[in-house]
């Protein structure tokens, strides 16, 4: 498979999987990813964290990925989540 044009090294992809932005099943099954999948995952991370949404692993995203954080995923299995309530 062609390498995704979007640069995201394995540690970045691991981060996206670890915190729920890419399917965690990929860890086991090694599914091939398209550029779109990766870009969407990065955009979701940027949107969730409140940094500019570029779809690329820019400086702000790199900084975010190095920041101290909780080990739980941000995007959880929706089967176990109840309705999201926003104010």
């Amino acid at each position, binding site marked *: 498979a062609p390498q995704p044009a979007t640069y995201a090294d394995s540690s970045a992809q691991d981060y996206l999987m670890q915190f729920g932005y890419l399917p*965690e099943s990929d860890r*086991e099954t090694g599914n091939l990813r398209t550029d779109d999948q990766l870009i969407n995952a990065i955009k979701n991370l940027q949107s969730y964290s409140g940094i500019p949404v570029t779809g690329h692993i820019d400086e702000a995203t790199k900084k975010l990925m190095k920041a*101290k954080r*909780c*080990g739980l995923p941000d995007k959880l299995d929706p089967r176990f*989540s109840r309705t999201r*309530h926003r104010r």
Partner: protein
Amino acid sequence: FTVHGQKWPHRNLTWSLRTEQPRGLEPGGVRHQLSRALDLWAKNSKLTFQEVNSDRADILVYFQQGYHGDGYPFDGRGQILAHAFFPGTDRGGDAHFDEEEIWLLTDSSDEEGTSLYAVAAHEFGHSLGLAHSSVRGALMYPWYQGLSTNYELPEDDRHGIQQMYGAPEERLWGNIPGGGTQPERPPAAAPSTTTSSTTTITTTTYRPWRTRPTRPTRPTRPNHYPEERPRRPDRYPVKPDYRTERPDYRPQRPHKPHRHHTTPSTTAAIATTSVATSPTTMGYRPRHRSTPSPRDGIPDKCDTSYDAISIIRREVFIFKGRYLWRIGDQGLYEGYPAEIIRLFNLPEDIDHVDAVYERPDKKIVFFIGNKYFLFNGNILEPGYPRPLTDLGLPRSLEKVDGAMVWGHNGRTYFFSGTMYWRFDESENYVELDYPRDMTMFAGVGYNIDAVFQWKDGKTYFFKGKGFWEFDDLRMKVAHEKQKLSAPVWMGCPRKLETPDLETN
């Protein structure tokens, strides 16, 4: 905010710091910070928190490092600070802090250290049922932000906790919309580690300078609920014991002759040619032994769990206690179950196997306790058994629950308790970044009995007398409720009077 899954069924929760001496920290100070963090949630809800000295508390707090047995390893000093489990059984509610971080027992943080209070307040949000929030400034925002002095719970988190457990003022007026359904836990016998005063201690009345033995505590019942199994998350529970399922089962060695269909000459041929022979002549037939077995004490094929299942030479072998069944293209073979030791040259005193799988090189691996046996055909390879540690499995592992070559990716997996490992057959060692938590195989749960990939290419997990088909692509069970094993795998009739697991 996002509410995740279950909430606690009662509002008076107990907690306990289970790491006696967190590295470089004064335990009293740690407990004080944890107490303050819980107080933040108590002030904004109907919840109360009582510290107890018991590993049966609702929320157990640990300081741990690296791999610590739950599939979510810490990364040393730096990025991942802590994690906690949502309300539920076993580890539900527990909070784990990375012991290698520099924890500060103050509200402020600096370049070097991190405020334990700030992180604990966030993690306890998970313990109570809140997931992460994308609202910057919210306590449940995943990235560490630190907390100011006299910190008040942000609006986003307050709405979240009050949706689940009600607002504190509602406690005074008895008007309990939404959160008013959780009862107080009734007083019961105190755990032996607590005193038996009748004073309720919540975090709001906690005095860190008072020592634990003199601090009055309201008696609490052990915090496991009748329908749940006792919490001991760090142990690997043993499989259901066939000896208790069959009270008449006698594990002693046999004395009476056992009827079978094999002759010594065919057995000898099997031993030398079985690897290469076709399935129909593969020759795994009961072999003669000097002390054959009795027919009594044989597990009932229609009413039993399984210890291990594997496809060996394209036939299904089902193991239970000292016996096995063999299923070919025409169904269950006659003359079975047979004693395992009649087919495989295992020690005579074995009373079960834990897991079995056929390696890609066609050799067969048996896991029994903390050892594994390697067979070429039915001949034990020289130098075996060997310890599980040779495969890279931890010394503390008491047994392997299941082993399989996963058809989805051709990799070998080992399962034990709450964890699983991927195994590199070329290196003969488990792969880096393992173990992981069994929740990856969604819907299967922990402590499986057996797993294998059947001829249809699908994966099946077994536990108790039932099984799940697994959807490899969606990484979850194809049906959430178990199906009964006996009608499907042993061709047993469905008994109308026996409630099917599918509907139970």
